[in-house]
């Protein structure tokens, strides 16, 4: 299926290549570079590029293109999903996935890639299994290895590979047994000029960090499971149990994992926690425009809104902006025309605002579009959909684990049209 993989950085250098079948010359990437040039922006490079003898499927993450070469029909999502899984694995192994890190750990990267695919077909992609086969580099292990001469490569088949719970390794031991669950909800919304909501939906995930000894069997129940419109699970979740009882029952993987992602649909009314008042105007005659925005809280259920940032892509005609914020800092990049304003926490008594003037290109006609405002914010201790975890129980092990649940609401793709 997957023939070869090329890693290409943003300046167009191929800095890593791996072949699972016979070697494909790296000149095949020329087609990719061509497409890249045509696309002008990195995210506009088509994910699938046909060439006379091969097909190039690529994903773009962390400023690196991961280009897979395939020769025959294969579901494109299969390859794309795999490439993303590769990136996730690197991130898991090295903390970050960037060009220098990959170059520094090229041997581990190579070994991992070797295990992930066999003849182009995925072999081991669960990070729990991979980590048993090839141990991630840590400073301590590096020191130990140099002294004892031991290696990073395991010599036993990972137990998970054969068990019915491939995602969990056996023989896990912790002195402190703890299970943390973060319920994180993101609001995707489009707000129109007048402040009314065009579309809003909530995308939620439950990320877990489970450090429990042995083979615990957990069940997590919700106060209001009906809210969840559409869900997708980590493979450990027993689907039938969810279907019949709306309870999450699972043997968790060890460490960090995403237990569940869910969707609260647009049909439900979504509370929008912030509003933006804006007045942005360009005048035809003058080369100055007025710019003023104010951010304020709306339906926040009494919680504070933190970490607010406002970004906006200004029209090309804007040369510079002279603005004064009532709080926080702002920057305007005259090259990319990107305005960003780091607001911080919203104080409901004194609403943060940013006002000033824009200087426009002299003689040019006024831009026909007002810029869209993108908003980022965080609200701690609140799941905006109202989802609440009822209880978490553990079976199969004797000890009492420490359990913690945290809620958070964030802005996802939150846009205000002006």
């Amino acid at each position, binding site marked *: 299926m997957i023939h070869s993989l090329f890693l290409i950085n943003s300046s167009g250098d191929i800095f890593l290549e791996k072949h699972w079948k016979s070697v494909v010359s790296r000149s095949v990437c020329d087609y990719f570079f061509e497409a890249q040039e045509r696309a002008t922006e990195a995210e506009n490079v088509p994910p699938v590029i046909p060439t006379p003898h091969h097909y190039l499927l690529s994903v773009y993450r962390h400023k690196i293109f991961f280009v897979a070469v395939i020769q025959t029909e294969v579901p494109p999502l299969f390859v794309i999903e795999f490439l993303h899984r590769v990136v996730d694995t690197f991130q898991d192994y090295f903390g970050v996935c960037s060009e220098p890190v990959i170059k520094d750990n090229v041997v581990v990267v190579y070994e991992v890639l070797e295990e992930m695919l066999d003849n182009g077909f995925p072999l081991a992609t669960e990070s729990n299994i991979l980590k048993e086969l090839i141990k991630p580099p840590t400073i301590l292990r590096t020191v130990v290895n*140099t002294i004892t001469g031991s*290696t990073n490569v395991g010599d036993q088949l990972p137990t998970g590979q054969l068990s019915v719970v491939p995602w969990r390794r056996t023989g896990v031991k912790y002195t402190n047994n703890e299970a943390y669950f973060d319920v994180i909800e993101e609001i995707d919304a489009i707000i129109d000029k007048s402040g009314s909501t065009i579309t809003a939906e909530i995308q939620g995930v439950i990320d877990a960090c489970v450090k429990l000894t042995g083979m615990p069997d957990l069940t997590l129940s919700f106060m209001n499971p009906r809210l969840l419109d559409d869900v997708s699970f980590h493979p450990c979740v027993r689907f039938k149990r969810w279907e019949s009882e709306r309870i999450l029952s699972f043997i968790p993987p060890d460490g960090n994992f995403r237990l569940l992602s869910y969707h609260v649909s*647009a049909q439900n009314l979504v509370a929008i926690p912030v509003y933006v008042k804006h007045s942005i105007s360009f005048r035809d005659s003058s080369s100055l425009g007025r710019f003023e925005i104010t951010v304020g809280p709306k339906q926040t259920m009494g919680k504070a809104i933190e970490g607010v940032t406002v970004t906006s892509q200004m029209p090309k005609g804007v040369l510079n902006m002279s603005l004064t914020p009532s709080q926080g800092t702002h920057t305007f990049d005259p090259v990319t025309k990107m305005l960003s304003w780091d607001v911080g926490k919203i104080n409901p008594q004194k609403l943060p605002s940013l006002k000033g003037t824009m200087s426009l290109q002299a003689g040019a006609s006024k831009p026909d579009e007002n810029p869209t405002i993108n908003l980022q914010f965080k609200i701690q201790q609140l799941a905006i959909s109202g989802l609440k975890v009822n209880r978490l129980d553990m079976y199969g092990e004797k000890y009492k684990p420490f359990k913690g649940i945290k809620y958070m609401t964030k802005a996802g793709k939150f846009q205000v049209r002006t």
Partner: protein
Amino acid sequence: MSAAPAYSEDKGGAGGPGEPEYGHDPASGGIFSSDYKRHDDLKEMLDTNKDSLKLEAMKRIVAMIARGKNASDLFPAVVKNVACKNIEVKKLVYVYLVRYAEEQQDLALLSISTFQRGLKDPNQLIRASALRVLSSIRVPIIVPIMMLAIKEAASDMSPYVRKTAAHAIPKLYSLDSDQKDQLIEVIEKLLADKTTLVAGSVVMAFEEVCPERIDLIHKNYRKLCNLLIDVEEWGQVVIISMLTRYARTQFLSPNQNESLLEENPEKAFYGSEEDEVKGPGPEEAAATALPARKPYVMDPDHRLLLRNTKPLLQSRSAAVVMAVAQLYFHLAPKAEVGVIAKALVRLLRSHSEVQYVVLQNVATMSIKRRGMFEPYLKSFYIRSTDPTQIKILKLEVLTNLANETNIPTVLREFQTYIRSMDKDFVAATIQAIGRCATNIGRVRDTCLNGLVQLLSNRDELVVAESVVVIKKLLQMQPAQHGEIIKHLAKLTDNIQVPMARASILWLIGEYCEHVPRIAPDVLRKMAKSFTAEEDIVKLQVINLAAKLYLTNSKQTKLLTQYVLSLAKYDQNYDIRDRARFTRQLIVPSEQGGALSRHAKKLFLAPKPAPVLESSFKDRDHFQLGSLSHLLNAKATGYQELPDWPEEAPDPSVRNVEVPEWTKCSNREKRKEKEKPFYSDSEGESGPTESADSNPESDSESDSKSSSESSSGDSSSESDDEDEEKGRSSESEQSEEEGKRKKMKKRKTVAEGHREGSSSDEGSDSSSSSSESEVTSESEEEQVESTSWRRKTPPSSKSAPAAKEISLLDLEDFTPPSVQAVSPPTIVSTSLATDLEGLTLTDSSLVPSLLSPVPGVGRQELLHRVAGEGLAVEYAFSRQPFPGDPHMVSVHIHFSNSSENPIKGLRVGTPKLPAGISIQEFPEIESLAPGESTTAVMGINFCDSTQAANFQLCTQTRQFYVCIQPPVGELMAPVFMSENEFKKEQGKLTGMNEITEKLTLPDTCRNDHIVVQKVTTTANLGRVPCGTSDEYRFAGRTLTSGSLVLLTLDARPAGAAQLTVNSEKMVIGTMLVKDVVQALTQ
């Protein structure tokens, strides 16, 4: 990893204390001399004894490979280390080998023996990795070695090694496609594997090597469906996509009756969607939808596939979700396809590459099934931060989804998009508006006005695009839009984009009668600037001139001639040609009168308005989710999605004839094996069957009840399966069967037909009385499905009335025959082919052969067809076997129906599981034609229900046969008093006690029947008992002599409790199942 970074960087680092020369820069390459030098360092390091140095060297070499540097000249030095003890060095050497072996084939052979040794290693990881590397080395000489290794690994104990073997198959195939036949054999073998680990990989191999051998899937189809949910994600994708193709060849189109309604899909969709929200599942929707139509019967296997893939829509992997979505799109009845929309919309939150692929597929789907995505319209709204390619795809979907009701909101959205800074996107939006306007008549004027307003936009691209779209729209109703044409005419002064100018000119020319005063003026202006125009504009100028000349020659004659003269000397030959051609046509000359008379008709013929179509129309002839679909072109290796067959192929090919004959053999299990097929057909196709048999009357009510039952089924399934997770697939199956058994109670009369055909899945040769009952009820219907019954005659004919057993009990004895027959593949395939031949012969014989024959504990061991005239049956006589009390005595009945005498009948080399032994019967010297004889043999089953496999030899032939004992036959009765019984029972509590509650049907509430049923099920003796409602039985297992105590506590109103106490828990559990089954039927 201290050293790795230092070496991989382009600066020389110190190699380590003591070996300063190793620190030489490895990558300063470019100059050859330094290359050699560097490689000398590495060679030296590889030759040392120190593992740490070797490791350093290998790491540097791998880093070179990773950067695409050539390291092939190190091959001899590296290959030496293939046997290195250090596992990391070894792995890195493997990496190197796989990369360069192809280039250095001779040297690569040096490493082969190491791998061959590795293949025998006790550590499964080492076995697997040896096979992996061995098969990855692309050296044609070792093909035979690879073949051997693969074959061996395919029967390895470790499923991980078997998985590796499956991976190796396509590798070998790509190296040497002549091995195909042998590889197919291995694939066939691995397809039968029951572990989830192997399933995905072997199907992958199947797809690469022999996707056309769909026949290999038949036998494994149900297993694959059932395993699917536990297979890892990548395997799921491959299996689902293969099963989609399979289903397209094997089942009938579920929508065949709906094709007439295609025009009006909207209504159906609203309805179905509501159903799904309220109802228990799509099954119900299907069930209610179907009976209203003509008889279409969904194959239970088809339903099985749909049912088992549905939960995977919840997978975290986008690839799996897409795979299921395409499966539903291609295979599901229309009413059920809706379920995939939600999952696909969810994927739109994912990475942009995923969005890109998903949106392409949604675009195709939304053309055919608009209703499906309509509720999610808002999810396709475009954000300014989306990449342009995503925006354009979303726009495509929005346009497809637009209809009379939602068009106002859609247009409002479009209005915001038009002001976007991304001009490509704006152009696409204008196109989209044009398409909405053509599709939805109501908003055509609104759109047109909107577009006309855009004509005053400052951006020329926007204006140009609008003109092009307006032109297309105007063609639909030109008469009413004189004003707009005038407006456009004015634009010719400003617009410079050639395409737009050309469009305007064409419009004016075409509708010059609506603007009689402006048109000549436009021509005048154009004539003035003719030489400076682009080619397409020039062509349109000529066109305009010609049309005006024909309609208004008085004003434009001179202008036209001027334009034509200019064109005559143009640089472009197309334009010169066009000018010449036009002149000949319109200007009447002496000779060419004939054509010029018709010139007006030629130029001003009414032209049909162009249809603005989605580029995604008709893309669905490619399998969705495939690369070919995405590219809209056939990719290499794309497997065409076949059309539905007109006639369903024989569904019985999927019947598993040889289910687990080595392992599971107890009678209960075998019986259960058949049950699912009964109940399946009831649960799934019940409604349609009833519609089949009496289409007018009670189809309605029937369908209701059966839809209930199917929903009930799914809920019980969910419970069961949940508990099941984690257990072996085998027990999973039996659980499921247990639950299906429950359904059996809901059996209705009308099922006869279906049952007949489906029952043969489990037992083809059974002389089941229940079946024959059914037969007599609905004999005529049976005629169609006779194939299985052809096998029946021998056993039913010859069934001796050895024991007096009631009809009901018979059921207990019927099923095992299949397993008993189950000779290894050679025989069964020949049997199958023979039978195929038979089915073609006349069917008038059948009813008489089928008449219920009272019979017996006798089961078939060898069918007369398979045995070339020799038919063998066996029965458990329940008499102690003379000579060895631990043996179960088996009566074997031979009959010779061939022409010739059969000589030298004896038992050949038995292949027995550990512990099982056979006491052979004395050789039968000769069996004359038509005669039959009986022999007794003893088998020590070692208190297990494993099958005893042995060969039955004649002088000329050998037949593989196997006997599987029902659990009840593994014991002998013992007699004890009630007190003794209670005492023994007291010792066997806790784990040794198995209790089950059951309800006795009315038919077996009296003592006699209960006792008879229990004793026929199991070879137990009755223990006298004080109370009337309690029955006690006792026995000992034959081999170990462990006690088996059975208590049945019958309470009023049929409630009863069955308790079995036995040291052998397995036997106890199976016995409970058997007895419960016997009693409740």
